[in-house]
């Protein structure tokens, strides 16, 4: 009898541990403050993270491009907007989504879990994952911006779409050497 009750207690512990707010593992959050799992939401599609901050003029200028790309690839890829600045509260982010005409799921990444897994350091920067969570691409969306405050009239190379096209065609995805241009994500050291 004793043995049985001990076993039960163990099982209980194992179940309750992950839900504990003191969890050692951090997670991205949805705008309701709940832990979010973009891979489960994406199912068998590619997962694309676009890292943004509400006050970065460069990532803001990309809003129509990001929304267009997400529409274009909706059959094969699930796009998520990721806000890695801990102080940007859900209310601010909701307003940002509305102002910039986004119709995409938004995640907060206050502990920079996704930013680190995606190897990004800039807003806007993109990361593409396979459905089985393999990082296929991270880097700039295109070469529109060459430096802070220095933009081309139009981009001439499109790294994110190239990565997506290759991933969809099951071809190798080459990562760009060119760094993303935009606002730094603080706290990544």
């Amino acid at each position: 009898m004793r043995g049985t009750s001990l076993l039960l207690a163990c099982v209980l512990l194992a179940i309750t541990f992950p839900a504990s707010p003191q969890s050692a593992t951090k997670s991205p959050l949805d705008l309701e403050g709940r832990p979010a799992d973009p891979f489960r939401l994406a199912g068998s599609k590619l997962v694309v993270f676009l890292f943004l901050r509400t006050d970065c003029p460069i990532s803001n200028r990309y809003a129509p491009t990001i929304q267009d790309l997400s529409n274009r690839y909706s059959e094969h890829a699930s796009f998520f907007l990721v806000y890695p600045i801990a102080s940007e509260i859900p209310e601010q982010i909701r307003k940002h989504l509305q102002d910039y005409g986004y119709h995409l799921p938004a995640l907060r990444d206050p502990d920079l879990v996704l930013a680190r897994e995606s190897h990004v350091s800039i807003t806007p920067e993109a990361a593409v994952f396979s459905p089985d969570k393999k990082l296929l691409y991270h880097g700039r969306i295109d070469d529109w911006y060459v430096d802070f405050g220095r933009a081309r009239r139009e981009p001439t190379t499109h790294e994110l779409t190239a990565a997506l096209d290759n991933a969809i065609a099951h071809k190798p995805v080459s990562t760009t050497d060119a760094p993303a241009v935009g606002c730094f994500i603080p706290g990544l050291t």
Partner: protein
Amino acid sequence: MNHAKYSLAAGVFLGIFALASVPHAAQQKQASALSDKSSAQRVTFNRDIAPVVYRYCAPCHRPGEAAPFSLLTYQDTRKFADQIAFITEKRIMPPWLPSSGEPKLSGELRLTGEQIALFREWVKQGAPQGYPADLPPAPHFTPGWQLGPPDAILHAQKPYALPAQGTDNYWNFIFRTNFPETRWIRAIEIRPGEKRVVHHANMFVDRLHSSRDQEQHPGDGFPGMELRIESESFDPDSHFFFWKPGSIPHEEPEGMAFRLDPGDDLVLNVHLQPSGKPETVQPTIGLYFTDHPATKFPFLLELQNDRALDIPPNDADFEVNDDFTLPTEVQLLAIYPHAHYIGRELSATVTYPDGTLKNLIHIPHWDLNWQAVYYYEDPLVLPAGTRISMHYIYDNSTANIANPFHPPQRIKGGNRTTDEMAHLWLQVLPHGDALPPDQARLLLQEAMARHDVTRDPADFSAQYNLAAVLQAKGDSPEALQHFQAAVQLRPNDAIANNAFGAVLLALGNPAEATAPLLRAVQSKPDYAAAHYNLGNAYASQGNFSPAIAEFAEAARLNPQDSMSEANLGAAFAEAGNLDEAQKHLERALQLDPQNTLASNNLDEVKRRRASPQ
């Protein structure tokens, strides 16, 4: 449960992360070692960074201003510490194009190498706050109108809807003024509306309403990067009205107020950049009056060589020059270099009569987005015989990221955003005792106009301007040649035809004047001055019936003009209609009791009515 599954995956990612190079972490380690060694060189926000941020960043980086986030506190600044160190090192911020040196430009926003190093060191040390006692007082900014409540506020009639995406956008707003009498303006504050999308704004006075026909409906505004404002004569006062982020309105010095006549239009040219969301832009301008009419009349010298702009694709080093020699001594007050997107390096120099060379401005890395009008801290005296030189270099290769074409294409001079320009405006004030200011101005105008005509005889504006200045000087025969040249270049230009007709009239040739004046009113039916001149041409040939029609139209279009009424009265008198003649002559005298022509004619009409023959 989902959470548990996810965190397991995170463990796998971390393995990849460890393999990647992480420059941030490496830098940080080095920095902490350095700060341990040299605590005496500790850099803190309160002592070292705040004074720089308050002076150079906060004017734009604060709520309601053009920059995207605030930099007013330690917390604000710390959030962007890395970024600030990075972009100050690259001299992207604060935005200031000219290189340092003489002569000094006012409002210079240029950090010293020392200040830039401070930011880098502060970040290396972990961006510490420091002692509260070290913090300087927060900067004080005047809320609202920078020069206090304006004497008049004008609103753009309709907002412009800027789309969320696309390339740079240029929109022009017309402010129709309607003051009952001439106002003298000592300052204009331009409030461009949504400052975060406005790169710069430039305002022009349009006394002839020459921009109005570009609006589809009155008040709509109209697109276009460059404006062509027509004027009948040289404006006696030429001022810059320029706004860029963070700029404080320029208040004209004593005696240099600018004249705004009743009905003048003010046209605001605004350079906009889509922000990612739809924006509406509806500028407002505040006018500050003075009771003191202008006593000093600055003049805008324009060096330019758009004609030389024919830049082959992939030419990274295309040079364009223009030179102008001053016929009289001037004081140089301000300078405005202007090119479009493929300008690379813009400079201007002067060569004094003794051969000494002096730099006026040097912009090593031109960026259209940060163009500005620059005022000199102390005006420069440039004696007669000084040669002003403009030297611009263009880069039409792919290395120039601002290149509007990819791959590069041949680019020529023009007004569209994809065309190029090579212009340099200098605001000067005639100076020295050799000549009275009026004559000095005429000399400058004539020299400028001859310079333009010599460079390009097919330049309509150059021909027109030279003709106008010759006419002002009283040299009608030579003026006639150049008005004729202007009319040949633009056969339907209302203003040139009117001026051509007017000179023919002045030279006593009303028969030849009729055709150009008719073209003027056909091209621009609401052109009161052309109707008036045409009335004179008919009347001088004894054709009083069409003269009456033209004077009546001039008076209808410009109901405050005493001369139209006076001539209408005179034409009626000549045609034998004394009742109508008296009516209009009396009206002319109501409008201007000093109109001696009207009073003499009225006496004559009354005499004739008293003793009909």
